């Protein structure tokens, strides 16, 4: 397996979406190609860091305000659609 072929399969590999044979070819490649090992390992870390970062969490006070605004609009919509029947 060449490095370019490894890269093409990287996403499927990280997602556990490969058949056993391709997975084992890929792991053979990883065992001797340090660069691909580093790319694979740091790509996995990239995903984990973003997943665990709690980036853009919705603060409780804003959450409350947004929900109340949404529900008011939904009530208004319901009322309007009932009136038009």
């Amino acid at each position, binding site marked *: 397996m060449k490095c370019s072929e490894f*890269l093409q399969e*990287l996403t499927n590999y990280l997602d556990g979406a490969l058949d056993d044979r391709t997975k084992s070819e890929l792991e053979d490649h990883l065992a001797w190609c340090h660069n691909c090992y580093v790319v694979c*390992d*740091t790509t996995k870390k990239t995903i984990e860091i973003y997943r*665990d970062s709690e980036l853009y969490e919705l603060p409780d006070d804003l*959450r409350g305000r947004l929900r109340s605004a949404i529900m008011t609009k*939904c009530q208004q919509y*319901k009322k309007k659609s009932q009136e038009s029947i």
Partner: protein
Amino acid sequence: MSAIQPKVGEPVSEELALVQAAKGGDVSAFEDLVKRYDRNVFRIAQHITQNREDAEDVVQDAFLKAYSNLEQFQGQSKFYTWLVRIAVNEALMKLRRRRPERTVSLDEDVKTEEDSVPREIADWSPNPEQLYKQAELKEILSKTIQGLPPSFRTVFVLRDVEGLSTEETADALNLSIPAVKSRLLRARLQLRERLSKYFQKRESGDGQK
């Protein structure tokens, strides 16, 4: 090296019962759906728009649109996937309004070969996230993802942050499965490459771990 584990979702039948109740006029059932997914919609909206006010608007507009179009939800996909599709469209509309000079489309597929060829292959520190304080780390992650084309960061947030499957992401974005996979690979590799300058192993003596 083990595969990334997907997040586990809520039971679908319970959710469908809430949707049915909301369709029948029970607004509090819809409020339960809002509570269930408002954090996810906000996160997706903020990732796409990269603007707090826009993200707030998207949350309100997406839920109101979902409520007023509930009859069109036939249950062929999960309610959440359907809601995400609405939210992504609202977020992209906001982005287009803010950046009319640039084309913003999910079909945007920046074709340059070197995007997929890693250049920086230095290894990272063992616990890169501990190199920075929490606030600094968030700043780095936010700045880094802002640099990706909207179509790439949309696929990345749905697949890797929200944990949607490839099929659900394709369904929510109206893209083919190969298109989702291709964008996801490039988004992951570009983020990895950009983060390398913050996270790579340093020589000892510079004060970093």
